[in-house]
């Protein structure tokens, strides 16, 4: 099998398992997510157990995996290695949190729930992609401005 095929199959399989996990965990139920964020109202701790399960398993396996020289089907690991906390991280995460609290949906479940064909999920997904496209335009114009200010 070509390595591109193996990468594709692995990515697909991981995606399927990821989607089933989100569905079992209750992440495709916006009311549960909003309930978790309703800390000052009727708090629903369900989401904390999702995080606990996910991080517990991933933390345990990750340390063994990255001891390898390379992943199975690619030449090297490509993990983020930045450490600095900047304004982009803070503002971006804060905006994401507002959207998450308003809709009760984050990017994973937004794609997983498309299969229902239900209008609220489809509308959210389209708006999310639109938001990402707006970010691209914003990011490009910021970069242009920065390079213009550097060159006299």
């Amino acid at each position, binding site marked *: 099998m070509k390595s591109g095929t193996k*990468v594709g*199959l*692995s*990515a*697909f399989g991981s995606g399927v398992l*990821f*989607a*089933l*996990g989100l*569905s*079992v*965990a*209750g*992440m*495709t139920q*916006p009311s*549960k997510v*909003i309930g978790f*964020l*309703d800390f000052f*109202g009727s708090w629903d701790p369900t989401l904390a*157990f*999702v*995080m*606990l*399960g996910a*991080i517990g*398993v*991933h933390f345990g396996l990750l340390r063994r995996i990255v001891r390898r020289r390379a*992943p*199975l089907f690619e030449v090297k*690991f*490509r*993990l983020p290695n*930045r450490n600095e906390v900047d304004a982009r*991280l803070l503002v*971006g*995460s*804060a905006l994401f*949190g*507002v*959207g*998450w609290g*308003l*809709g*009760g949906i*984050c*990017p*994973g479940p937004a*794609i997983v729930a*498309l299969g*229902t064909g239900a209008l609220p999920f489809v*509308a*959210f997904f389209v*708006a*999310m992609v639109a*938001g*990402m496209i*707006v970010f*691209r335009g914003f990011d490009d114009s910021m970069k242009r401005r920065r390079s213009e200010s550097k060159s006299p």
Partner: protein
Amino acid sequence: MNLDDVPLTWVKAFLGGGMIGLAASIFLLTVGRVAGVSGIVGGLLKPAMGDIGWRVWFILGLLFGGILAWLVVPAAFDVSMHRPLPFLVVAGVLVGFGTRLGQGCTSGHGVCGLSRFSVRSLVATVTFIASGVVTVALFGGGS
């Protein structure tokens, strides 16, 4: 504590979370990347040569898994949401823009980043949960 006292939703949440962690681990072991959904989708909006296939296959997997879950357990999906449509559209735009600016969402920062003890991901996760809590406090909760 008696095991019967543990609500079934918590058990399912823990098991589902475990599946998410396992999926992220398989992805890391085979493809060598972070299973962060917003980054994987966002990268497709500025496609680079040789950087498209694995993204498309992962997203197709999410879609396929979602359809499978919907066919087997439709109750897992809360299609009659209590939030009105305009709310959801504004929410979607904020989630799309915010996760790209902050370079990660619940999966990339919340699961993968925290598992790597990334300081950036810890700050991001605390920030989006805090702003989510404030938002729900202002706009009302689920029930």
